[in-house]
């Protein structure tokens, strides 16, 4: 059987590197081209050293891109929308990992990204790529938008409560999100300088984080607020969503809601143990894997629920999710090329 020919635009960054790591081992995919404007001509392994001796692929410029079966776009925010018409001519299927086509309403880009969208006519053609919410639409999609890592952790934490109608929607939902440094991408800035970054716990976006828009859009919650803190991790996101449940809701109701949402999901695991060391979701053990671990706790006296979700931001929060999206839109097994756990210990 011939393999799907996949190319990656913007392959020198961290999400591009993760796409290469996954696609090079995917049983039904052949990586055709990987682009980088600044590193054209250099070997992929020179910038993704974990891929040494696995591929002799060299970065090429976008000008050298050839038609392929599926095109992954891993460019910084704002770049894809400027060239989307060219990309659409190169491949019948596209997975865009940037934020450029996540939101359906162009006005939301003005509100959350502070700028006009350059190609709003294409927003409606992209399906939001979170299978736990949009699986059926993704199966028949030609164009899929990747997901925001912080939005994914927040959405997966809250989805069971929303679906089961357990939330008291008269009260706000506050999601405290702790993130690792790889979310910031492969480019350096003063905040990523080691003496500044190391051992810091920095609340970099207590309000107004862009990914809030994806939670509002996908869960239909109006009064939801994300608060972001960068912690001393390279990979990982932990979202702790604080909300209130309707009176009379018990912990067993929460168990039922989480099981109903996730028992059939291949990459979501409920972690709520009464014993042992690993009683709650922790991104540490998810590094490198496409799994999301979710859990919850209920203060029965006040009705406050804390719904938790942990992911690897580069995997379930970006490249792993993108490969899962490609599997769905290509009719492959949804788990193909992604069936491995994280490392323990790491």
């Amino acid at each position, binding site marked *: 059987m011939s393999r799907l020919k996949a190319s990656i635009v913007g392959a020198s960054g961290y999400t591009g590197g993760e796409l290469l790591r996954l696609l090079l081992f995917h049983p039904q995919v052949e990586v055709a081209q990987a682009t980088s404007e600044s590193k054209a001509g250099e070997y992929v392994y020179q910038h993704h050293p974990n891929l040494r001796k696995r591929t002799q692929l060299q970065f090429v410029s976008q000008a050298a891109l050839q038609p392929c079966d599926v095109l992954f776009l891993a460019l910084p925010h704002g770049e894809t929308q400027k060239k989307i018409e060219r990309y659409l001519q190169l491949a019948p299927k596209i997975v865009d990992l940037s934020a450029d086509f996540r939101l359906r309403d162009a006005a939301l880009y003005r509100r959350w990204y502070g700028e006009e969208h350059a190609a709003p006519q294409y927003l409606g053609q992209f399906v939001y790529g979170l299978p736990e919410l949009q699986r059926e639409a993704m199966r028949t999609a030609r164009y899929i938008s990747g997901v925001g890592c912080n939005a994914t952790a927040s959405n997966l934490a809250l989805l069971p409560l929303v679906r089961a109608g357990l939330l008291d929607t008269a009260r706000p939902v506050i999601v405290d999100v702790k993130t690792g440094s790889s979310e910031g991408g492969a480019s350096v800035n003063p905040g990523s300088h080691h003496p500044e970054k190391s051992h810091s716990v920095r609340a970099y976006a207590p309000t107004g984080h862009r990914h809030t828009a994806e939670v509002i859009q996908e869960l239909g919650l109006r009064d939801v607020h994300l608060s972001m803190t960068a912690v001393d991790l390279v990979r990982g996101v932990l979202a702790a969503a604080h909300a209130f449940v309707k009176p009379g809701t018990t*912990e*067993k109701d929460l*168990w*039922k809601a989480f099981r109903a949402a996730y028992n059939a999901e291949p990459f979501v695991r*409920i972690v*709520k*143990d*009464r*014993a*042992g060391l690993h*009683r709650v979701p922790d991104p540490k053990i998810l590094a490198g894997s496409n799994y999301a671990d979710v859990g919850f706790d209920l203060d029965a006296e006040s009705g406050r629920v804390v719904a938790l979700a942990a992911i690897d931001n580069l995997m379930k929060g970006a490249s792993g999710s993108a490969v899962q999206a490609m599997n769905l839109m290509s009719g492959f097994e949804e788990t193909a090329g992604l069936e491995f756990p994280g490392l323990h210990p790491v």
Partner: protein
Amino acid sequence: MSALCPECEATITLTNVMQGEIVVCPDCGVDLEVTAVEPAVALALAPQEAEDWGE
């Protein structure tokens, strides 16, 4: 034979258990004591130590 976990209501399949035996819920990891086997298996939460962070 099967029984429901009193903590999380997971269905637990049990074979050849005896009264007084401690079993573990596969979903929530809680320790459960088999309090009866006839006419049906009954389970109760067994005492467990809480996590101690020393604060």
